[in-house]
């Protein structure tokens, strides 16, 4: 399918790249139009209309108020300082349209007030200053290099020079010089508009925000309008080219608002999608199963991106996607039968995107605190690149998927550890039980073979008994190997052994286990089982019993196991040598902090009771002194 991935150069994040040429042409055309109209008064087409002037002012006012509302809302919601300044600038615009246009028009002062012209210039300069401040604040997120700073300063100086030269030319051509303050204020506004426009343009490229793009474009037009205001001053009822440009500026702001709304809406929709996708991941069934988790990740990611998704596990800390041309070592994902190149660490920055053979491939690394697990790769049968949102979604998804995968891998490791532990426990059991019994049988049989004629029935009984034990142990080993690793309790282990014993011997065995029998330590469990084994062997060998009852109960804090038979019994106080088996059983119980008692009545039966603490206790080995033997 895909053999490798080339790291794509960071693509321009802006979707407005396509607008660059037309917008530039538009700017040039409008700028030219303005310059022509302001430098050639004969070209001016002036309309005298109170109503039109008022309509333009009202439209601009409404847009300014809307922009104020949006910008201030963003400031209040997210504390973006640049938005505060943008909001204030539009508030100044709005106030200007009310105080310097609408009110004078409505009260009929349109032909009398020179201060409206001057105030209009001051208002624009103040708004321009606020916008420049907003641009600078927004731009603080972007570090201006030395060259960038020089460029901005150069452009600003050139603009100031251009304004001065224009004024000088006009001064030379026309003796009626505008009042210096009335001329300068719009020009200051123009410079500030241009400077702010440049900063917003830069920000639109950097932050991929349509809002800044339209703001920048509109401010340029507003800047050109200022030239006209600087040169010609007309009464308020005259609709001048500058007013038209200002209207276009506010139309641009309308676009900016629409773009902001649309971008926010799209962002919300994507965030909702992201949340839905991440939520789908949290519903992953079978967290213990790496395969199931992988499938779920691939399914959800594939559905979300309309692509085929694949989780490639390369092992912790290893694995890099690369260009087939650049890689020197191949890594292979055996599950998907996919080869990947491996390159040195840090060589490539994710995400990786590559289009070839009519498909695009997008890969993000699956990183954890412990290192890189592998990659999440999405493949689409198309030549269109994945969008910025796709990349963002896959990244967010990859981060969640990494956590899930790491957790399930951890489970798997623990499970593998449990299997190893179980195997080692079984090996120990076989060694201590089955292997010992078989070794004994070999030696016993070899010994008996020396004088076959003298073999006694009791010796054969003994062999049969040990064979039975060995058989039970072999069966147990097989069952353990076949089943899932699990820890069996002492009760389970004893019950199982007794039941097996009942099957292989001719003795009727009954096991009663209490409900709330607590757990004992692993060592105590082994010794308890050995005691029961030995007790049952003795029943089989010596007791001549037909029934044996095993009872496992909670006795205060101890676990008590009793083995009672209805056999021939014996005299407990008699013949130490003959009861070496009992001595060993006692020793086993004592070795885990327990004790063992034997009671037997000839012709009635024998009862062996062993008690071990429910928690394992490592008793201090008794010293000869503590047993009072030195004094003897």
């Amino acid at each position, binding site marked *: 399918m895909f053999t490798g991935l080339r790291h794509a150069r960071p693509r321009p994040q802006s979707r407005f790249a396509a607008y660059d040429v037309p917008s530039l042409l538009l700017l040039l055309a409008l700028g030219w139009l303005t310059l022509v109209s302001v430098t050639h008064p004969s070209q001016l087409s002036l309309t005298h209309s109170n109503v039109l002037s008022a309509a333009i002012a009202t439209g601009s006012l409404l847009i300014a108020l809307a922009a104020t509302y949006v910008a201030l809302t963003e400031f209040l919601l997210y504390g973006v300082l640049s938005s505060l300044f943008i909001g204030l600038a539009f508030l100044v615009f709005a106030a200007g349209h009310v105080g310097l246009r609408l009110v004078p028009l409505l009260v009929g002062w349109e032909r009398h007030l020179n201060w409206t012209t001057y105030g209009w210039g001051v208002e624009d300069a103040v708004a321009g200053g606020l916008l420049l401040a907003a641009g600078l604040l927004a731009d603080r997120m972007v570090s201006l290099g030395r060259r960038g700073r020089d460029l901005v300063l150069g452009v600003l100086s050139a603009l100031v020079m251009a304004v001065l030269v224009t004024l000088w030319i006009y001064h030379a051509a026309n003796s009626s010089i505008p009042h210096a303050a009335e001329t300068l204020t719009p020009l200051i506004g123009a410079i500030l508009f241009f400077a702010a426009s440049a900063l917003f343009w830069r920000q639109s490229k950097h932050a991929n925000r349509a809002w800044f793009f339209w703001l920048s474009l509109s401010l340029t037009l507003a800047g050109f309008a200022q030239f006209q205001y600087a040169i010609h001053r007309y009464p308020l009822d005259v609709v001048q080219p500058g007013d038209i440009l200002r209207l276009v500026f506010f139309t641009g702001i309308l676009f900016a608002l629409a773009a902001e709304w649309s971008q926010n809406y799209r962002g919300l929709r994507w965030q909702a999608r992201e949340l839905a996708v991440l939520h789908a991941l949290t519903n992953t069934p079978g967290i213990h199963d790496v395969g199931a988790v992988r499938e779920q990740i691939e399914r959800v990611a594939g559905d979300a991106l309309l692509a085929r998704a694949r989780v490639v596990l390369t092992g912790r800390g290893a694995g890099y996607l690369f260009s087939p041309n650049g890689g020197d070592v191949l890594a292979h994902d055996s599950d998907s039968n996919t080869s990947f190149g491996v390159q040195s660490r840090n060589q490539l920055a994710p995400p990786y995107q590559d289009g070839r053979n009519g498909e695009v491939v997008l890969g993000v690394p699956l990183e954890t605190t412990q290192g890189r697990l592998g990659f999440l790769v999405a493949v689409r049968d198309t030549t269109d690149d994945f969008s910025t949102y796709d990349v963002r979604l896959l990244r967010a998804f990859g981060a969640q998927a990494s956590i899930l995968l790491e957790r399930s891998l951890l489970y798997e490791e623990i499970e593998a550890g449990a299997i190893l532990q179980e195997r080692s426990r079984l090996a120990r059991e076989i060694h201590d039980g089955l292997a010992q019994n078989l070794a004994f049988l070999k*030696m*016993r049989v*070899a010994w008996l073979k020396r004088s076959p004629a003298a073999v006694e029935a009791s010796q054969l009984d*003994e062999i049969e008994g040990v064979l039975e034990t060995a058989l039970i142990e072999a069966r147990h080993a097989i069952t353990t190997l076949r089943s899932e690793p699990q820890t069996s309790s002492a009760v389970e282990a004893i019950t199982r052994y007794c039941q097996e014993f009942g099957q292989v011997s001719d003795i009727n065995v009954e096991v009663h286990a209490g409900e709330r029998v607590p757990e004992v330590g692993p060592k105590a469990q082994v010794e308890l089982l050995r005691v029961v084994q030995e007790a049952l062997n003795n029943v089989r060998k010596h007791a001549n019993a037909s029934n044996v009852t095993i009872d496992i109960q909670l006795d205060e804090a101890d676990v008590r196991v009793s083995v009672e038979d209805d056999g021939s019994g014996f005299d407990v106080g008699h013949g130490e040598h003959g009861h070496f088996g009992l001595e060993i059983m006692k020793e086993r119980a*004592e*070795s885990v902090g327990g004790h063992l008692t034997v009671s037997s009545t000839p012709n009635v039966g024998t009862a062996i009771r062993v008690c071990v603490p429910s928690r394992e206790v490592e008793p201090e*080995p008794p*010293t*000869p002194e503590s047993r009072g033997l030195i004094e003897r």
Partner: protein
Amino acid sequence: MSGTVLIVEDEAHLAGLLSDVLQAAGYDVVLTTASRAADRVLESPPSAIVMDYLMPGLNGAQVVDRIRQVVPNSPPPVILVTGLSNARELATKVGADAYLRKPFDVDKLVNLVNRLAKQPEG
């Protein structure tokens, strides 16, 4: 041959077999468990000790330590019998005079005991 051999073993039937073998070779045999071995040695010092390694409570090395505590001057020779694969290493650790890995030829045991057993004084 004569003398007493102390068998320290936690498997009763194996202890029984070793007992049969050594008795047939002319020895008196005393069976005991790990925790009581030192007492037995103190009660009547045996000519040799045949001892398992893995036993409940105490292992072979601990048993030998305790025997050496009670009879520091003339500890009886020890023959280690174990099913563990590192029998040689364990024998060194225990300070045993000889070792046999289960299952073993009983004649070898008898020969070892014959060779190592201290003859009873007098």
